[in-house]
């Protein structure tokens, strides 16, 4: 049960964090200048967007949940099951970022879920 809770936090908070960072990046716009000074300015601009801080907070929570799960389960189990974030990412991108998800991508996500189920069943 504890493993399931940690996995839930890793997937939901990790994916939620990435979606928030993605939304922050869309607020900032596409980067065309890759010179070091321009990249530093870009980072400072990103830090002024509220979504960025929500995203970083959620990703930090996911990281500590990953550490907690690694303390009780094998890494060869933990990392593959976190691939479930592909499913959470597709659902989140559709609902939160209003992206269109193609049928091919849904098929890929479904196959990832089958793989995660197999890895979960292999748990000792």
């Amino acid at each position: 049960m504890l493993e399931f809770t940690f996995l839930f936090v890793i997937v939901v908070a990790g994916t939620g964090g990435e979606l928030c960072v993605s939304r922050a990046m869309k607020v900032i716009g596409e980067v065309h200048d890759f010179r070091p000074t321009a990249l530093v300015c870009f980072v400072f601009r990103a830090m002024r967007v509220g979504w960025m801080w929500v995203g970083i907070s959620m990703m930090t929570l996911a990281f500590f949940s990953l550490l907690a799960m690694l303390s009780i389960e094998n890494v060869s189990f933990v990392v593959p099951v976190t691939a479930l974030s592909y499913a959470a990412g597709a659902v989140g991108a559709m609902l939160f970022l209003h992206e269109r998800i193609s049928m091919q991508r849904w098929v890929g996500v479904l196959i990832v879920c089958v793989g995660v189920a197999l890895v979960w069943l292999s748990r000792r």
Partner: protein
Amino acid sequence: MKDSPGLHLKTYIFIFFMVLFAPLGNVLLSKGMKGVGSAKNWAPGEILHVLGSIMTSGYIWLGIGCLLTFFVAYMLVLTWADYSYVQPASSFSYAVVAMLGYFLLGEAVPPLRWMGIFVICVGVFIVGHTHPRTTEKL
């Protein structure tokens, strides 16, 4: 992605870094956390004790360093290579993490888990071969 032998070599090298450093980082985090152990209860004192052990673990910091190296390699390769090319290639890291867990940490990896990892790699490969932009360009 512009087609030239040098660019291909550079891309392969950076994807190799990604596929190596992300699993290595996770294996080091795992090694560190096995040393730290899990919190016995949710009391603030116990949580602080575990956090203190995490912050002073060399393996954890090495793991974070590897994950940062992965992240930098990932960001850099995306500046010239297509996301739809990089993401499927990086799916190999699921297999590499199981191999490193088996060889470096002596973890038992049952056949069902290998099969699951293979299926995940196939799924990620298909996800990565879809168009990276699904919304209208502003």
